[in-house]
């Protein structure tokens, strides 16, 4: 079944971005003065590549504004964790609050940017990232609240699954996390915007990846206009 499926799919170019590459490219979207919520996985890595000249505040939805670096062994405090349950520190000027207040600021649009991972995104901007039928369901955590309310959502994802099937689709096949919410995608192959009327607008190519590679890897409607620059990291 699997081999049958992969026959009709393209071969992946070998120069696609790794997780760090995706994180570095997303870090370039971060503007001075932003309040940002970073999801678990690649999004968490983004914090490592935000230039020190840019001042941002990272929100942890369990109840903290001002996530700092991981603690040294001596600094470890069991009362200080991020949404991924990792031990963290607090930046000077941090604020602590309840999870209700945390989601109040998310819902009311005070958080400027949400960066999260996805299993699928549709050309309408729908996102699926919480449940795979047949697998143990762990829960949506704060993902549904974040995607329903964020002013700006950037998705970090692989363009295709391991067997080459596109994850940028006409419509999601997995259970939805939120409708029409994704604005921008940074994949291992490209940077794309979701157009208000639907469709993925190609903005940049990963180094060494061609427009043709991206066309083959995108099952949803791809809009390509003019010269598509290679991304700088």
């Amino acid at each position, binding site marked *: 079944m699997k081999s049958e499926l992969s026959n009709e799919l393209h071969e992946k170019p070998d120069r696609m971005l790794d997780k760090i590459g995706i994180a570095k490219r997303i870090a370039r979207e971060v503007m001075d003065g932003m309040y940002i919520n970073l999801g678990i996985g690649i999004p968490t890595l983004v914090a490592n590549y935000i230039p020190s000249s840019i001042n941002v505040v990272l929100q*942890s*939805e*369990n*109840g*903290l504004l001002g996530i700092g*670096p*991981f*603690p*040294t*062994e*001596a*600094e*470890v*405090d*069991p*009362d*200080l*964790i*991020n949404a*991924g*349950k*990792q*031990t*963290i520190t607090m930046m000077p000027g941090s604020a*602590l*609050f*309840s*999870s*209700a207040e*945390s*989601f*109040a600021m*998310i*819902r009311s649009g005070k958080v400027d940017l949400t960066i999260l991972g996805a299993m699928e995104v549709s050309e309408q901007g*729908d996102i699926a990232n919480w449940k795979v039928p047949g697998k*143990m*369901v*762990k*829960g*949506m*955590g*704060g*993902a*549904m*609240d*974040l995607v*329903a*309310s964020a002013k700006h959502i950037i998705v970090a994802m692989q363009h295709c699954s391991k067997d080459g099937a596109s994850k940028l689709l006409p419509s999601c096949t997995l*259970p*939805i*996390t*939120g*409708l029409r919410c994704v604005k921008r995608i940074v994949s291992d192959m490209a940077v794309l915007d979701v157009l208000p009327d639907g469709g993925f607008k190609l903005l940049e190519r990963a180094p060494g990846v061609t427009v043709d590679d991206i066309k083959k890897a995108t099952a949803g409607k791809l809009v390509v206009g003019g010269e598509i620059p290679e991304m700088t990291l």
Partner: protein
Amino acid sequence: MINKVVADADEAVRDIPDQAVLMLGGFGLCGIPENAIAALLRKGVKGLTCISNNAGVDDFGIGLMLKTRQVKKMISSYVGENAEFERQLLSGELEVELIPQGTLAERVRAGGAGIPAFFTPAGVGTEVAAGKETRDFGGKTYLMERWLRADFSLVKAWKGDTAGNLIYRGTARNFNPMMAAAGQVTIAEVEELVPVGQLDPNHIHTPGIYVHRIFQGRGYEKRIEQRTTRKA
């Protein structure tokens, strides 16, 4: 001042019956009522419905009560990191209701604030919306969600006084303040129990009106789920 102090965790949970609906504070293993959970294990109450953001790990937190089959139903936003949980769920021994985290926090807050329902955008267009009323406000669709209340709320604070005023520490605050307010009977355990007058009223997170019983917790383990460090 009213004195709400009880001797220990066992006395605090003495009248929690089988089939009770409980709220348990904490996010992951951070800020969980360790002493009250241990007392529930000793007491052996069964058929519990536990409202808690997470379900602990195999050998700590609510995971301990899953092992002893004391939990009938979990109401949570994320229940990973627990193999026994998965086994009971797949075998049908355990019922689970998954709720978006912000909706869970607000449903509990609403329960403590006397608000029977509210509208939120989280979950619109997803399976969470099944069977729920939706309504448009300003061109956007929202989902009606109802309050959550509990027979007993078990919360953990850093400091508390004999009148039940509580102060939390770090991100151990999480769901504790809302749950303290949403319990018909709220039981608070604290790392440091002090006489009234010792806590600055400016710094109280949970006013004592919400707390019915308070006790000095013992032997906190405060286990860490993901110990992540950088080189010194």
